[in-house]
């Protein structure tokens, strides 16, 4: 029998009391000093939104009783209990180190937008976004369509990359200020920049996202402080999402 893996926790992890993917019942399999939360599954499940929601629900339920397991990326399937034990057994040191790093904490995501008008580059940028949304090749086609000549095309690209640099620097500056403002409420941070040269990046002015690892007992205060930070900066729109299992802090 094969197993779909949801999360890996410390020994003592309680069984999540929610259905797993396709209505299966989650089970716990002990491997060394860790426990794997799994569902019986004959073949690797294809990703669908329903299955992904179920996967997340099991991981979240495992977090709900004072434990912080390591969330596992969707698609980790093992053909047998022996294979599962072999993979988890071989990674025990790393798993236990990571479990210690996230113990008692959850993840919050802060998304930052600039409310200031974008610089005047956006011909290339908007053209790119439009090209992408209609299924075309985003950057080059969109820019070229509006430019009309090679020189204009290169200038529009240069402006666009200048915009990306400015947005990146602005986003990083805000993220650093936010981290300073939150201080000891945050155990760890992962800045999630949009991929460079991504034609779809930040068409609405989003600068970047930041994932914060926050001790569970500070969740309420963290949310208040983060929102207060946004409220005192008129040029910034800020959204706080969470708490989530610490997906961003286990890879």
């Amino acid at each position, binding site marked *: 029998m094969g197993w779909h893996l949801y999360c890996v926790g410390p020994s003592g992890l309680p069984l999540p009391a929610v259905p797993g993917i396709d209505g299966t019942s989650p089970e716990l399999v002990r491997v060394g000093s860790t426990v794997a939360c799994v569902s019986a599954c004959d073949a690797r499940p294809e990703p669908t939104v*329903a299955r992904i929601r179920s996967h*997340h629900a099991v991981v979240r339920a495992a977090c709900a009783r004072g434990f912080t397991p390591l*969330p596992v990326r*969707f698609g980790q399937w093992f053909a047998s209990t022996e294979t599962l034990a072999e993979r988890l057994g071989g990674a025990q040191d790393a798993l236990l180190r990571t479990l210690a790093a996230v113990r008692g904490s959850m993840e919050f995501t802060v998304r930052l937008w600039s409310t200031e008008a974008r610089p005047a580059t956006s011909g290339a940028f908007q053209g790119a976004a439009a090209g992408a949304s*209609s299924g075309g090749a985003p950057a080059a086609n969109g820019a070229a369509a509006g430019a009309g000549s090679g020189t204009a095309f290169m200038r529009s690209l240069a402006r666009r990359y200048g915009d990306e640099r400015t947005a990146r620097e602005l986003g990083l500056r805000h993220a650093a200020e936010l981290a300073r403002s939150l201080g000891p409420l945050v155990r760890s941070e992962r800045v999630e920049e949009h991929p460079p040269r991504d034609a779809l990046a930040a068409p609405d002015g989003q600068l970047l996202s930041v994932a914060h690892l926050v001790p569970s007992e500070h969740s309420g205060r963290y949310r208040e402080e983060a929102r207060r930070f946004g409220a005192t900066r008129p040029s910034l729109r800020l959204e706080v999402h969470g708490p989530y299992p610490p997906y961003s802090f*286990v890879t």
Partner: protein
Amino acid sequence: MPLAILLSRVLDRGVVLTGEVVIGVAGIDLLYLGLDVVLASVESLNRSGPRPETAQSLARVPGIDR
């Protein structure tokens, strides 16, 4: 949790123990395009109603109600 954030977490983050990982839904190359942004766009289109040329690609995303 917004769908875009959920999918970016569950498909693109988390412990990987086997060599095979999911990097896309319905043929969308999520790693290349930036998962958050693509799926946020899918969500927006979903809310406002897709244009004719996007209806076909949305129909290929399993589980997204339209």
